[in-house]
């Protein structure tokens, strides 16, 4: 993130970009700047308008409203083939009637490069993706991971100013996904190209991106670094969408200007330390978000908030154990414990103590009611 040069014009800027298909608003007034060499991930559930956004940046569709700037110049009237943007498609979109070499050479041929220069560049690109010997292969013979790499090589062959990745890992199996994730980052660093990456997979977003823009219902919900997004989600939606969170509703009982007490629906008092002081006024309905892994469970707990509870379900996940517990007042919580040496796995029906410290919760004004 140190690479971010904030004084220069952003590599790409979206200004109030809106896309409507008939009555449906796919992208709603999105404004966003992406710095040079940044790796930005647009994260959102399926149908959130991610692909529409990418298609507008690439120039396949025009925004209904707003403007897109690349290097400070508006591009709405620029056709896709003049935008110098590389793109890796969800289906890879490798041309099935061409060899690997011909696929990678395609953008260079379109730019009327010298044949020798094309050969040289194709060789360079295949070396970059560490598959130097597959130029004469048919793309239909390639494995999923190889197709992925070839698609990247093709998208980067003409040295685009911007690289778009549309769910690039979604067609790969889990193991390959991890490998390709590292590969993509390596290539991003080697090529140093500004990258916009679209995904619905939060883990992919958290591990890859310099910054993440979470998009929901066509709008940007939060645009921040991965750590900030995880530690300080700005809405219950983000808290729920990224990481595992229990959302509880309650009402502020009292506060001292810094700390406050929230009464949960079951009557339990919870001490909270909201990041933004002062806390909401007494009587305000609120939502309290609790990360599964921030809650501890044990025979006894020594935390600011501590409750007696009964284990309702146990899910053993190997490295972690997740309990669903019922507080005595009726509130339901989920708790994830690390499975390290000496950890006790509680069985169903056990009485346990659960708790967390003030400040470990997220506090939001209730959205409705």
């Amino acid at each position, binding site marked *: 993130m140190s690479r971010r040069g904030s004084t220069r014009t952003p590599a790409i800027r979206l200004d109030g970009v809106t896309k409507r298909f008939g009555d449906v608003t796919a992208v709603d007034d999105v404004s966003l700047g992406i710095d040079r060499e940044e790796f930005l991930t647009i994260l959102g559930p399926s149908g959130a308008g991610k692909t529409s956004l990418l298609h507008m940046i690439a120039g396949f569709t025009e925004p209904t409203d707003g403007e897109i700037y690349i290097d400070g110049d508006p591009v709405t009237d620029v056709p896709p083939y003049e*935008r110098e943007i590389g793109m890796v*498609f969800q289906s890879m979109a490798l*041309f*099935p009637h061409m060899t690997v070499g011909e696929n990678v050479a*395609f953008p260079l041929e*379109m730019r009327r490069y010298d044949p020798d220069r094309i050969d040289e560049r194709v060789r360079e690109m295949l070396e970059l993706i560490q598959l130097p010997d597959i130029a004469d292969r048919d793309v239909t013979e390639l494995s999923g991971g190889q197709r992925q790499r070839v698609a990247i090589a093709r998208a980067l062959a003409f040295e685009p100013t911007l690289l778009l990745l549309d769910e690039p890992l979604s067609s790969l199996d889990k193991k390959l996904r991890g490998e390709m994730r590292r590969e993509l980052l390596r290539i991003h660093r080697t090529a140093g190209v500004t990258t916009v990456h679209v995904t619905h997979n939060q883990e992919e977003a958290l591990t890859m991106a310099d910054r993440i823009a979470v998009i929901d219902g066509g709008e940007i919900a939060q645009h921040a670094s991965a750590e900030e997004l995880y530690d300080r989600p700005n809405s219950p939606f983000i808290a729920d969408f990224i990481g595992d969170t229990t959302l509880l509703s309650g009402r502020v009982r009292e506060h001292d200007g810094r700390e406050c007490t929230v009464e949960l629906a079951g009557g339990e008092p919870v001490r909270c330390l909201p990041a933004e002081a002062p806390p909401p006024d007494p009587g305000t309905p609120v939502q309290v978000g609790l990360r599964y892994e921030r809650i501890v469970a044990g025979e006894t707990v020594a935390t600011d908030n501590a409750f007696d509870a009964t284990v309702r379900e146990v899910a053993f996940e190997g490295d972690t154990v997740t309990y669903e517990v019922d507080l005595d007042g009726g509130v339901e919580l989920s708790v994830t414990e690390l499975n390290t040496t000496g950890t006790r796995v509680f069985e169903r029906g056990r009485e346990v103590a659960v708790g967390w410290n003030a400040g470990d919760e997220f506090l939001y004004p209730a959205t409705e009611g």
Partner: protein
Amino acid sequence: MADRRRRLRALLRRLPGEYPVLGAIVAAQVVFLLVPTLIVLVASFQGGSVIRFPPDELSVQWYAALPGEERFLAAFYRSVLVATFCTAVAIPVGIATGLGLIRYEIRFAGGIQLYLLLPFTVPLVVSGVVLLLIFRELGVLGQLWTVGLALAIINLPFMIWSVTSRVNALDPELEHAARNLGAEELQTFLHVTLPALMPGVITGGLIMFVLALNEFLVSLLITTPNIVTLPVLIYTSIRANVSPLVAAVASVYVLAAALAVLAADRLVGLEEFLRS
């Protein structure tokens, strides 16, 4: 009762193949389809001047006589010309129609499709009569190109089907990718869209060519004696007598069909023909 059924099943299971009963039915159909087709080949090697079974003696004399049969050669040449013309007309028309129907928001698309099926719903003999009347009215009857045009018309739906099924199957991301990589509209079409439609075009083109090479009824109605095509000439020759010479000529067709099947299998795979 149940015991008998079980024993029957056990018996069936011992028959070869995955589908024993079905297999037997289909095997009979294969014989039924092939025998009348391939028998012409056998008959053409007849040594005598009358076709009879079993043949008196085998000989290639009728093939040796073929190069001297100018009437047949000329008719064959005309048939090839007509088939080529018909295919050359049908391919661009088929591509344009496929793209137009599927890529654009056409009003009354359903009605247009129904209209384009007219060549199939109008009985062939009526199509022949209709084209005869039109070509007569236009004063072009007896010109060879009219036969090619007629065959392009009556088989056009085959071409349109082959192409539309490919246009439908075309992944829009491929064209997006091409434009993204720097290909403007024309190059996108030439380098990506057209090659992707190619299997459909080849399939349709092959069907058009072979059907035109074989077409008989419409040709019979609209050809005048100086432009008869080979199927029409074979027909008149059969009516005259069942000479083994005609069998040798007809064998050319069986060979052409086998060649077309081979070509189809090599170019796009025969399975492709079961897609549209």
